[in-house]
């Protein structure tokens, strides 16, 4: 890629920095150039976020229909999966999977709820009393 071809499109990264890329100068030698963004990249990131939003929406419906507990919804909302959530809570993955069941969730101790609430960065009430 030549330096003058370096895209300067808008991107979410703009608020933080321009990023450095390796490009050819007019003498055909390598140099570095700064880019504000590239539409192709931005669109790839956007489509990943569209997918996330859709998953969160499905999770919300599942909780409302009482198929899943709020733990599942907040896991999706915080972009976590079982591995990450297990890492933060210290619970086994199969334990967390059990907590996804509404009737198991109903009987969770305050201690466990506090652990989840803290990691999801919400209050216990927001977790127990699902209003999303």
């Amino acid at each position: 890629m030549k330096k003058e071809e370096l895209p300067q499109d808008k991107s979410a990264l703009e608020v933080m920095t321009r990023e450095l890329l390796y490009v050819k100068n007019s003498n055909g030698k390598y140099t570095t150039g700064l880019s504000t963004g590239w539409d192709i990249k931005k669109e790839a990131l956007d489509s990943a976020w569209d997918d996330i939003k859709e998953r969160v929406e499905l999770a919300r419906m599942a909780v409302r229909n009482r198929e899943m507990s709020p733990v599942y919804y907040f896991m999706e909302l915080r972009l976590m999966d079982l591995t990450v959530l297990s890492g933060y809570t210290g619970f086994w993955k199969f334990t967390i999977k059990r907590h996804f069941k509404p009737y198991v969730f109903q009987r969770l101790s305050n201690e466990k709820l506090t652990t989840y609430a803290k990691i999801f960065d919400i209050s216990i009430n927001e977790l127990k009393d699902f209003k999303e």
Partner: protein
Amino acid sequence: MEKQFKHIQAAHCENGVATSLMRYHGLEFMSEPLVFGIGAGLFYIHVPVLVINNGPAVAYRTMPGWIFSQASKSLGIKVSRTKFNSEQKAIEFLDQKVKEGVPVGCQVGVFNLPYFPPEYRFHFNAHNIIVYGKENGNYLISDPVMETVTTLSEADMLKVRFAKGPLAPKGQVYFPENVQRISKEVLNKAIAKGIKKSTVMMLRLPGNIVGTDGIKYTSKKIRSWRDKLGPRKAGLFLAQIVRMQEEIGTGGGGFRFLYAAFLEEASNYLGQEKLLNISDDFTKSGDLWRESAVQMGRIYKGRTNNEQKDFEICADLLLEISNIEKQAFVKLSKMKLGK
């Protein structure tokens, strides 16, 4: 403090930390491409079955941590690395280093990194930054992907150092120890060794999912995605490939331009004109990776009718890339670069 720390912006965080720290310790000639090449950073792998963030698991570079440790080993530099089980001990260790005036590398997760834009904050735990001081209770941070330096509060620092999930940093702190002057012979040897390592990794590892064969494997997979996953999900898979390839940290074209820049430098150091031609091969490869991203973008952004032939175009490009890189590495493997 006798030495002043100087922030350097790099394409990739690990290269950047390595380059900055080596320069701080007196290796003024060090550059990001040099670290990347000597550390044998270029790679390709497509792990089958495994799905990350609902997309295929592809990588354009070696394991996190590998580049710095390989480069240091070849140059005869010892790197001290410490992980922690106790948060308190991790804080004390870092503060002690700050007090001694030693800039250190820290592995962090980006999900809670406040200066990252929200769109970029996933649970990715292999980001690297340098802590080079502390002022008014805030750590002074040199994040290699940024144009300027920044700061982190004590609370935020603890959060990002103890992010959880895959590749959890466990508060890891690392820094080079007793860096000596490096002779031209040692440097040339390290460059040759780095090239050799990359040739082995790209050409000779067994199986069909790594190196230049791995690129061919992805090409084959892409041809089947539309039928197997449906047009929408297949498009998302392509978007994931583009993100791995172009997202902040690769220097563009999935590290291929960075490697081309390394070979250009290597040709100077080793006095081998031919390396310049091979550098051009990697520039060509990088350009084709960018071109494939454009074609993939047309699919996931819905600028095509999302037909099988659109996927075939992408797959054909990857096949071409695989061939170019294969030939380039065969040429490299046949060169006599010294031991």
